[in-house]
């Protein structure tokens, strides 16, 4: 697919009669469009955008619910050589003022020409969206009155132009738009197509992943579009409320490939009644790729055991590691390995104390099991480095830094952040990992990013909200993620010092209010709020709350937090 000049050229080359996107709602409600129909609708949206003065290079922000319409607007913008960016649709939990802040930040940073919303965009949120003088708000829909299909000039084939911008979640993350060129995306897709052995005649992708997330956008939209394979998609919200429907869709449509974050490998089996499991047929599945979160052996084993009777192949569950800054993936496990990704057992104490991997026999007392994220994609090079940047040897965990042929172009309009992330041509991922036998094992994050259900949460965002509560001493809050084995993902906990001891008599009310404020502000749920007396949080030498030392103190008082 590197043979294509750009992504639109790849779409134009797809066989018109072949099904492209099926939007699945339930067994009675689904819509399928062919590649030809998708192109027609995308051109229609391009016409709408052009009628609103969008031209090459303009940034177009799209805030629309998951669906074919959103995808055609995204591609329509690219057809004009404009640069689209998808951001999350508002949900019931997000406070309008916080949402406004996020949208305003993105539009200001991208200096967007238009912000595209759908016909159903909630008025209570719309009233709070403030845009710059140069930015237009544009509602689009499937109705015929919104524009007309236009004959567009052939794609200019600019291989080095920015194709689109990806954002990570969170109000801070919204300031970091990852600019990706057509060339970088096409190279990544070529590597993935090769590693996944994509067959355009037989493969079919299933997805519930949000399109504003790299795994949803690249793995489940760009990959099928460029490889000319069908995609069956449902909305993330519908899926999370009915997780079992993933099995139903795969069975009905005989899907062969899906990308899933680790938590889904526990989430689905635990919400599918054992009596109903046998009715599904997963024999069509070639690969389910575990990515976007640290890969946990127990989660994959649980899924495999739960659905063994559905015809799920033993080696179907595989793994990958990646980052939006590298388009999507950096590594991929060997999909032909019948037992799935490689696993190793290491001495737990040695690892925790010195980040050294000392192999031990399987299941030894005190051991930790690590699951490989696979080998590097072609034209990729990584180093494991210490805090000082010195290269570390095999079996030693450190920060993963990367060079590749599909690295991002930088954070859009943020040269300061780009300069911090890319040093001497090496992208510093902020993730911790180690290599054994040329396979990469990812163990955590150097930064304090919290990942809940595959979603990136920045502690600072939570701390800022919690610290604004009248009962909390300003600046004396720490938020962190703690792995919850029941959920298969991290859970947010907050430690906050109250202004005075007497407030500890009313912790239930304060906790409820803090939880509600964080949920309203960020749209995430908080596991536990630990309210502590004044001066309880450990301070660093700089006088700031010391995260790891405070967590250790917390673990001593609350042993239930000691989870392997």
């Amino acid at each position, binding site marked *: 697919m590197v043979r294509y000049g750009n992504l639109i050229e790849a779409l134009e080359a797809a066989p018109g009669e072949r099904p492209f996107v099926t939007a699945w709602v339930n067994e009675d409600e689904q819509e399928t469009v062919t590649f030809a129909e998708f192109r027609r609708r995308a051109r229609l949206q391009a016409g709408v955008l052009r009628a609103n003065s969008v031209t090459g290079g303009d940034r177009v922000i799209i805030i629309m619910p998951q669906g074919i319409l959103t995808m055609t607007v995204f591609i329509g913008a690219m057809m004009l050589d404009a640069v689209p960016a998808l951001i999350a649709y508002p949900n019931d939990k997000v406070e309008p003022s916080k949402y406004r802040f996020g949208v305003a930040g993105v539009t200001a940073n991208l200096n967007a020409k238009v912000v595209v919303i759908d016909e159903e965009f909630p008025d209570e949120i719309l009233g709070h969206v403030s845009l710059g003088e140069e930015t237009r708000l544009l509602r689009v829909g499937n109705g015929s009155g919104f524009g007309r299909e236009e004959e567009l000039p052939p794609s200019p084939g600019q291989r080095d132009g920015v194709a689109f911008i990806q954002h990570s979640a969170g109000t801070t993350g919204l300031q970091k738009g990852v600019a990706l060129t057509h060339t970088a995306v096409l190279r990544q897709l070529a590597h993935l197509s090769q590693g996944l052995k994509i067959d355009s005649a037989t493969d079919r992708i299933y997805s519930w992943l949000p399109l504003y997330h790299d795994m949803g956008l690249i793995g489940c939209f760009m990959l099928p579009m460029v490889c000319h394979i069908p995609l069956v998609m449902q909305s993330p919200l519908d899926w*999370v409320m*009915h997780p079992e429907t993933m099995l139903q869709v795969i069975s009905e449509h005989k899907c062969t490939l899906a990308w899933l974050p680790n938590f889904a490998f526990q989430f689905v089996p635990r919400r599918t009644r054992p009596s109903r499991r046998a009715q599904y047929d997963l024999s069509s599945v070639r690969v389910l790729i575990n990515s976007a979160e640290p890969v946990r052996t127990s989660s994959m084993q649980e899924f495999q055991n739960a659905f063994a009777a559905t015809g799920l192949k033993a080696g179907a569950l595989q793994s990958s590691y990646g980052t939006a800054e590298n388009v999507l993936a950096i590594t991929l496990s060997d999909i032909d390995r019948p037992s799935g990704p490689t696993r190793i057992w290491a001495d737990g104490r040695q690892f925790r104390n010195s980040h050294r991997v000392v192999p031990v026999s399987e299941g030894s007392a005190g051991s930790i099991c690590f699951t490989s994220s696979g080998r590097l994609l072609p034209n990729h090079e990584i180093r494991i480095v210490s805090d000082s940047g010195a290269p570390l040897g095999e079996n030693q965990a450190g920060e993963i830094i990367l060079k590749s042929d599909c690295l991002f172009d930088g954070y859009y309009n943020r040269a300061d952040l780009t300069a911090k992330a890319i040093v001497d041509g090496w992208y510093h991922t902020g993730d911790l990992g180690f290599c054994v036998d040329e396979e990469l094992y990812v163990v955590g994050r150097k930064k304090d990013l919290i990942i809940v259900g595959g979603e990136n949460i920045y502690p600072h965002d939570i701390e800022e909200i919690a610290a604004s509560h009248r009962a909390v001493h300003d600046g004396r809050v720490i938020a962190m993620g703690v792995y919850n084995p029941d*959920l298969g993902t991290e859970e947010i906990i907050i430690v906050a010092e109250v202004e005075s001891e007497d407030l500890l008599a009313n912790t239930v009310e304060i906790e409820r209010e803090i939880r509600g404020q964080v949920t309203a502000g960020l749209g995430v749920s908080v596991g536990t709020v630990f309210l502590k007396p004044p001066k309880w949080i450990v301070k660093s030498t700089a006088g700031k709350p010391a995260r790891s030392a405070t967590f250790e103190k917390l673990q001593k008082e609350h042993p239930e937090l000691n989870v392997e």
Partner: protein
Amino acid sequence: MTEEAKEMIEYILRRIRKPTLVIDENTPLVSSGLVDSMALGDVVLTLEDLTNTRIPPGAVKPKDLDTVAKMFATAQRVGKPRK
């Protein structure tokens, strides 16, 4: 309050691990952050069991499940008999 509503409240308190919390049929659960989207799948399954119905995907939004009262009203409105 019906027995089913009481059972649902007991289930939710267990699910969110707050057994001492006091909630009634009209306590906001989703909009207050007590029940997050990850827990909604469990709530829907329990609602289906308590009402002996199937809630079709795409037919409900989180706001339809914001209180226990709304949950049962939603099940009555969109629930289909189980096969």
